[in-house]
């Protein structure tokens, strides 16, 4: 679905990381965690293409002005890395952006009663927050393992804790939580009867995918890739499927076949 959306708020939650809330049409109520938006920040031709962002949250609020019923909103979490995100960070309440949403395949939540283990870092925490919220609404036990280079990359931990999620943190430089990779912390806690949901930098996902295989724990990963269209046409965002070879090509579109995959579907380095 393509529509214009109004920025409600756009707040820097950590140095260079922003959380933006936008109005959304009623149809977005059917979105699921793991799905993403393609956002065009303005009508200019530079930047030309949309940028993909995982849904951080979808909910409803009642606007302050009179005569208005409950209104749906969606949120994204982004890091300022280039021209597009710099323009995005300059937007204020009332500004309009153009959205394609909801896109892609989201997380499969799995049967009730298992322990749900979320693993992420940086803006990879965005879809995991939305997921945690839905899982907690179902009364599931949820643990979060969050990592990053330093404490600035560990976002919105308070929000996760407010949902009742048990959180574990590790940073490369030890400025927050344990010093080291969050995957090392994860490995100490992995046990059967768990289900992993991971989103973050590819090396992290690589480590989590292998670890889950070793321990026989089901694992879904949400991938990130350069993409132009978000609807399966440009074929810019493909990943190699597990059985891919030059003779029998098996490329999966991150935008359409993903962004969430069962970890065994993909080829890991």
């Amino acid at each position, binding site marked *: 679905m393509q529509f214009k959306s109004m920025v409600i708020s756009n707040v820097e939650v950590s140095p260079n990381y922003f959380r933006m809330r936008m109005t959304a049409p009623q149809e977005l109520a059917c979105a699921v965690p793991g799905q993403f938006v393609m956002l065009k920040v303005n009508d200019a031709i530079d930047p030309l293409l949309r940028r993909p962002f995982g849904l951080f949250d979808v909910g409803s609020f009642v606007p302050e002005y009179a005569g208005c019923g409950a209104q749906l909103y969606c949120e994204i979490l982004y890091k300022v890395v280039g021209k597009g995100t710099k323009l995005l960070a300059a937007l204020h309440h009332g500004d309009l952006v153009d959205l394609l949403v909801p896109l892609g395949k989201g997380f499969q939540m799995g049967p009730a009663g298992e322990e749900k283990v979320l693993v992420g870092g940086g803006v990879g925490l965005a879809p995991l927050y939305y997921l945690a919220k839905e899982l907690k609404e179902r009364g599931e036990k949820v643990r979060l393992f969050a990592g990053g280079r330093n404490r600035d990359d560990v976002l919105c931990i308070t929000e996760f804790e407010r949902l009742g999620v048990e959180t574990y943190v590790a940073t490369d430089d030890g400025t927050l939580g344990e010093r080291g990779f969050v995957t090392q912390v994860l490995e100490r806690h992995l046990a059967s009867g768990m289900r992993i949901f991971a989103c973050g930098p590819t090396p992290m996902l690589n480590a989590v995918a292998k670890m889950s295989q070793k321990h026989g724990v089901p694992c879904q990963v949400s991938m990130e890739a*350069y993409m132009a269209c978000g609807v399966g046409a440009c*074929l810019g965002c493909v990943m190699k499927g597990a059985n891919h070879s030059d003779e029998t090509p098996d490329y999966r579109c991150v935008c359409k076949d993903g962004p969430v995959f069962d970890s065994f579907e993909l080829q890991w380095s």
Partner: protein
Amino acid sequence: MQRPDMSVVLAGIQMRNPVMTASGTFGYGAEFADYLDLESIGAMVTKGLSLKPKAGNPTPRIVETPGGMLNAIGLQNVGIDAFIEQKLPYLKDVNTPVIANLYGNTLEEYGEVASRLDGLAGVAGIEVNISCPNVKQGGIVFGTDPGAAQEVVSLVKRNTSKPLIVKLSPNVTDVVLMAKACADAGADALSLINTLTGMAIDLDRRRPVLANVTGGLSGPAIKPVALRMVWQVAKAVQLPLIGIGGIMNGRDALEFMLAGATAIQVGTASFLDPSAAQRIAGEMEQYLVENGIDNVRSLIGALEV
């Protein structure tokens, strides 16, 4: 005032308006059905089809550049058999002409793919890609040498009874020479331009951004080059032309028609606005209404120099 007549006929293909979708930017049509009315546009051109499925290039395959983007997809496609079995049935039910874009890894493959497509109801015409800059075999080899182009177009012509469009590369010294070679070999129409070869460099990593090192530049950045080439070819060749290159709105599209194009293709614009083709057709019609022009065909080649 009556609505203006937007219809055009391109090499025998009846189109409700001059707006086509460019190969490789519109999937196999179905991908865009949620975003626009497929029966509002002039024609759809499929992703380039080959005899066997093709894996395409390693990633990263795309990168944005100022006013454009580079791609090196490498002609990934499902192959002719899967197209016929899985994609064509859906397209047959859409009341809009489908042009099958094709390429071969060898000269013989071009002929073979063309003959496989020839008997198919639901394929209104074929567009032959002799201009992909991103694969070693096929594509560009035939697109930069007039003799080779003539050979491949003649072969395809012998293997098809459908209208034959040849898509030209801009990565040549003289596009008119290539256009004439294709015309002599039996092309019924020419589409131009394909992407311009380019590259992007990551300074900090001291590496090319694309895994393929080079890629094809598309988007608004290439529009002036495309307009110039359409204009040059229109003056030199009698065939109907399809203008392609950075068309983002109705005005861009009509500029190509003034330069001599009978129809236009929307490419990169569909990536950032999946409803672009329908929107552009509407904007073209609006321009005609506002300027009291009752027939879009009256603009073809109407440039006053």
